[in-house]
């Protein structure tokens, strides 16, 4: 085991997969000479050459669709869209092309494409650089969506995503890039569609992903001091969803709070709450509660931005309310 950052985990995953498979290549803005705006691909150009690490013009729609074309030819493109907020520019390539190609060709075509999208708020970047758009992708059949919270999960899931034969959207949280964690040595892989219980507990299940896993863990710590034993379940992979682990946890605790940074209206939390209501109603001792981002555009001012996404206090309050305390 070694301790590295979430950003280094991405870098290691990319490098290891570039070394392992000649079909893997990186495409995106500022990825080669500059080594990406987040410094994740520094030195890759020298190591792998200009055919494997490609600097694109600022043409998200064009180069994402080109990645689909390259994937149809058996290559495994890893595309970075510098901010998830830019993905609407290339949504045809993602939603109409990559996601539907296998189905609409009757299973002939495979689009093994990974779309890495840094997302999330907290960097005072305002409305066009701070969104959490995972719900857009979970809504499109044919896409897989991962949102890792730790360096180990990031490395393992990203490596698996690159080897996966379907298009995978990887949501990275910008505020997690510098966070550190232990990552197993060797060829560390985490399967898609497996949730992880980051903290076991008996009284309530807090379901979270990405950065909000850390807020949930902090809330659970606080609640433990009050005699409340919260289980923190990190989905890691939103599609495919690990329904078995989620259902087992709720059957044990009989209560659930879902936490995400994306705005509450139309968020993936609503989908989870609905599924829990449909299938696990008899196991529930209280209504499922959502703690989510406010239904507003991310503001610039620090005095405003910190109010838009959930904090550990919000989560703890929702847990107390669900438990009737």
């Amino acid at each position: 085991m070694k301790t590295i950052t979430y950003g280094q985990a991405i870098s290691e995953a990319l490098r290891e997969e570039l070394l392992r498979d000649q079909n893997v290549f990186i495409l995106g803005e500022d990825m080669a000479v500059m080594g990406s705006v987040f410094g994740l691909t520094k030195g890759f150009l020298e190591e792998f050459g200009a055919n494997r690490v490609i600097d694109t013009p600022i043409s998200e729609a064009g180069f994402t669709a080109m990645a689909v074309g390259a994937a149809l030819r058996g290559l495994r493109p890893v595309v970075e869209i510098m901010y998830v907020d830019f993905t609407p520019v290339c949504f045809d390539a993602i939603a109409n092309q990559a996601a539907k190609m296998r189905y609409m060709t009757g299973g002939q075509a495979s689009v093994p494409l990974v779309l890495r999208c840094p997302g999330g708020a907290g960097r005072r970047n305002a409305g066009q650089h701070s969104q959490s758009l995972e719900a857009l992708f979970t809504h499109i059949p044919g896409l897989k969506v991962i949102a890792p919270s730790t360096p180990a999960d990031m490395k393992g899931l990203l490596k698996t995503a690159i080897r996966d034969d379907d298009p995978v959207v990887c949501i990275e949280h910008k505020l997690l890039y510098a966070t550190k964690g232990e990552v197993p040595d060797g060829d560390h892989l985490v399967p898609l569609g497996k949730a992880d219980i980051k903290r076991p507990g008996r009284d309530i299940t807090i379901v979270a992903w990405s950065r909000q896993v850390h807020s949930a863990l902090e809330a659970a710590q606080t609640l433990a001091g009050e005699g409340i034993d919260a289980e923190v379940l990190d989905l890691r992979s939103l599609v495919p969803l690990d329904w078995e682990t989620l259902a087992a946890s709720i059957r044990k605790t009989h209560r659930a709070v879902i936490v995400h940074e994306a705005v509450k209206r139309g968020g993936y939390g609503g989908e989870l709450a609905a599924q829990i209501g449909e299938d696990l109603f008899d196991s529930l001792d209280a209504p499922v509660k959502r703690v989510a981002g406010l239904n507003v555009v991310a503001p610039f001012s620090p005095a405003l931005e910190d109010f838009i996404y959930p904090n550990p206090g919000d989560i703890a309050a929702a847990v107390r309310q669900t438990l009737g305390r």
Partner: protein
Amino acid sequence: MKTKRPSRETLLRFYREMQRIRQFDLKAAELFTQGRMAGNIHTCVGQEATAVGACQALEPTDFITATHRGHGHCLAKGGQAAVMMAELFGKATGYCKGKGGSMHIADLGLGILGANGIVGAGIPIAAGSALASKIKGSREVTLAFFGDGASNEGVFHEALNMASAWRLPVIFLCENNKYGVSVCIDRVTNIADIADRATAYDIPGIVVDGNDVLAVFEAVSAAAARARAGEGPTLIEAKTYRHRGHYEGDPQIYKPADEAAGWKERDPIALLRAAVLALDPGAAAELEEIETSVRREIEDAVAFATESPYPEPGEVVRDVYAADNERSVVR
């Protein structure tokens, strides 16, 4: 026709391919009108020379992306009429197991990377396929068919720019049939030739008579040679005409009354027929034989499609993902 004389066999081969497309689309239109097909049918009657001229200039290992008006492109690249017709019928034996339909025929083994229901979407996909050839160091060329309407999509410009900057082995073939659904290109674009846009990307921009199969063949042959030599992309604009509506049943109120008649005189199949007979007046019987045998091929295709089974209901949840469909997909 051009001065360079192709062989008699070549002309007859082109004639057969153009007849296959014409008869396939007329039959599809007829069956659609009879209510035997669902969805929409977009025929390419009048545009056969572009599909055949282009695909005959490519090698079997080369790739194409087709448009929503793509029956001709797919047939010309080697698509089987029967399997295509079965797809139009929504049958399990169709190219896409009945999941794609008329607008989405694909046969990756034949290099058909897919017709596409989104206007312009195939252009960057073709450029991406060309990027794959460059990365792999292999020699396949990819040709993107698209219409005049698609030339006003943003991805047209993005793809031309990147293909030029990276000298990708791709051919952009614009079939200018004058209309994007109901809107004449002249009303929404202030240049006479879409090929002029090549100047902005420092690549060759060539205008050809899209109803002259040999002119298309020569232009695409030259572009393919250039692409294979590592010299990058070419933009070819083939001026042609869409004889039928945007979709079957389109009353075409937007077309001037006398316009179609002029283009009918320049019907690409009639032009090629005349060229063959000019070369060899005794070829009439052979031409008729080709027409008859193609008619049989299309009749057999309809019979195959009619007799083929519909997909099983369980098929609906297959192919969404390569694996783990059940958990992610089932209701």
